[in-house]
């Protein structure tokens, strides 16, 4: 599960880091990513594993355009305004999904989704392994992009000190559009992966979004490495948690973790480590 949690949470962390707003529409884009994967499969026979090739660029452009047209206007306003705007975007996406795809539960059924492999006597579901691998792969790709390219470094610089970024010639407005686009693309990608594991309705993503918030709070809201740690921590907490409590309470775990972390380590794991290192 850790790979999946990571894939659906980086976008949130990236958008918060660069734009300092919380993307409440994240769940909407997760849901949309799942639906688009299903729709491409049922209507055009595009294999669900190929769907991200279309979803990622399309969602990037959509996110970029959304930042240019709407989000940009509320960046300097009070935080509540951007929360309301993005909450509104979520509601619109949700209702659009009801109109287009109705409220029926959908799921993707292919031989791939049903497949299992036998590893040393253990039956492992292939899609789960695949989702974990893709999550890890995207984490690594994103980390390389952020540390090795000028644009990636400019994104990190903008997150850490916007004015200093301007002074070395970074076009901060452009970077914010790109970061928002990448954040939305990651949500779409995460949703596409999710559709391989779960059935979904237009409400899909709400509980998962709570987990995303938990992960970014665990990791520190603006750290990609932190997201990886946070995802792992939550996945482990849940894996242990279900042994001692009914599965129906599983979603409670992320909520409890969220509250505990907010009280004990308000800067997240990585933030706390950094503060200690800086002395």
């Amino acid at each position: 599960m850790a790979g999946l949690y990571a894939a659906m949470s980086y976008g949130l962390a990236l958008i918060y880091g660069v734009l300092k707003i919380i993307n409440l529409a994240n769940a909407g884009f997760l849901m949309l990513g799942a639906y688009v994967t299903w729709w491409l499969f049922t209507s055009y026979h595009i294999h669900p594993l190929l769907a991200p090739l279309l979803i990622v660029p399309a969602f990037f452009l959509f996110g970029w355009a959304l930042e240019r047209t709407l989000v940009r206007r509320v960046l300097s306003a009070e935080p509540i305004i951007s929360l309301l705007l993005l909450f509104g975007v979520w509601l619109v996406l949700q209702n659009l999904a009801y109109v287009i795809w109705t409220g029926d539960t959908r799921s993707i059924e292919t031989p791939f989704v049903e497949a299992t492999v036998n590893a040393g006597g253990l039956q492992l579901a292939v899609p789960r392994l695949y989702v974990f691998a893709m999550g890890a792969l995207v984490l690594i790709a994103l980390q390389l992009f952020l540390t090795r390219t000028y644009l990636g470094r400019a994104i990190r610089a903008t997150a850490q000190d916007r004015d200093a970024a301007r002074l070395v010639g970074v076009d901060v407005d452009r970077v914010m559009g790109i970061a928002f686009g990448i954040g939305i693309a990651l949500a779409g990608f995460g949703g596409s992966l999710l559709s391989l594991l779960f059935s979904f309705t237009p409400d899909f993503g709400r509980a998962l979004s709570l987990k995303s918030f938990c992960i970014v709070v665990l990791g520190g809201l603006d750290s990609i490495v932190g997201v990886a740690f946070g995802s792992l921590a939550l996945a482990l907490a849940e894996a242990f948690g279900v042994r001692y409590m009914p599965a129906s309470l599983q979603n409670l775990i992320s909520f409890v973790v969220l509250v505990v972390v907010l009280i004990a380590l308000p800067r997240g794991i990585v933030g706390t480590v950094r503060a200690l290192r800086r002395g």
Partner: protein
Amino acid sequence: MLEVTELAVAYGDVQVLWDVSLRVERGEIVALLGANGAGKTTLLRAISRTVPVRAGTIVLEGERIDRSPSAHVVELGVAHVPEGRRLWPDMSVEDNLRLGAYPRRARAGASSALDYVYAMFPRVADRRRQIAGTLSGGEQQMVAIGRGLMSKPSILMLDEPSLGLAPIVVAEMFETVRRINAEGTTVLLVEQNVRQALEIATRGYVVETGRVVSSGTREELLGSDEIRKAYLGL
């Protein structure tokens, strides 16, 4: 190469610069002096286009830049090393420096610029993998200046590089600025260390509550009674 004429700047309704004119020729070190809150930082920010200009003009190498975006001004060769250093604290020293070469014209020469900066600041070279926030104040200031040099600027604007440093490090800092200038970079230097700034400067301007109140060559300023009284404590 840089000419500011009758500049006015305001933060919202609060005007902080009135009718400021200033000129920097190629190869000079020009000192910008004045007490706290006089508007020195604001003047540099107007030139680097990180604060809006209300009136007046700024011309760099014949091109008007008072309405240009900051990225364009950096591309043209202005490097602004801000007050308080403003490094990216969670990035390595080397990543901080590499980002200094962000302008397109500087990217191809980034590796040689990095060698130049490390040669100028051997202490920074020793700490290149360290997280910038863990460095001492003096070292951070060197990284901040190094980051400015990475874009191979034609004019380097330094905002109080000696602020908060131990006296011995301050002397080193001024020596560094002199050397950077001797190696071909024009410098606009904001300082409250008036005596040391004038030691290395060719000319200076004194700003008080948002206006230029006097200006002249180094000798003229050092010889002026007002300056000796107000800033040199003589």
